[in-house]
């Protein structure tokens, strides 16, 4: 069974702090995505990474795909209350378009 393990599961920080969320697996993924989900809404795609070692930046968010394409990280610089939400990583390991989701990291940023 393919699994994506996210850590930490919960994170509560003050506005302005930096944080990193990790997504790890023993399986190789052809692509990996990060989504953000707010209460009462569906997940919204933030980024897709497809190349081992790839780094993508989206304003204050930096996404990295591991060289072996088994893991990924999301780093947020100077977190803001608007970053609060559930962050999900999702991988496609079989090139079929079927996504396996991690269990999510709940982030709370306090003003």
């Amino acid at each position, binding site marked *: 069974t393919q699994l*994506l393990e996210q850590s930490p599961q919960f994170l509560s920080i003050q506005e302005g702090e930096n944080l990193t969320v990790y997504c790890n697996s023993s399986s190789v993924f052809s692509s990996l995505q990060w989504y953000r989900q707010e209460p009462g809404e569906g997940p919204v795609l933030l980024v897709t990474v497809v190349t081992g070692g790839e780094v993508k930046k989206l304003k204050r968010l930096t996404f990295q795909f591991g060289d072996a394409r088994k893991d990924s990280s999301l780093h947020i610089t100077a977190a803001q209350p608007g970053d609060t939400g559930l962050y999900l990583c999702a991988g496609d390991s079989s090139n*079929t378009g079927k996504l396996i989701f991690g269990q999510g990291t709940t982030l709370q940023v306090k003003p």
Partner: protein
Amino acid sequence: EAGVAQSPRYKIIEKRQSVAFWCNPISGHATLYWYQQILGQGPKLLIQFQNNGVVDDSQLPKDRFSAERLKGVDSTLKIQPAKLEDSAVYLCASSFRRLPNEQFFGPGTRLTVL
């Protein structure tokens, strides 16, 4: 561009009753997915359609769950009879292409089974 539409947004039923959820994907998206998301967990794929054909339903509890996508556009997911453990958010998503698989999600239907 309109997003993925789902209805109802909330549903409360008693166990052993039946319930149906509806999804209208983004126009032109050939692939449609139904996910179950239990509180505190990531979404779990129930069924994947490519146009009106089933691509993957390996995790769909077929003794009580059914889904169809007639005409390759709208889709319905049905549970009959419902169990307490079916309480969850049911998410519908659609995508334009399989690779890379960038999915667009609807707001979900929150089901509570009493």
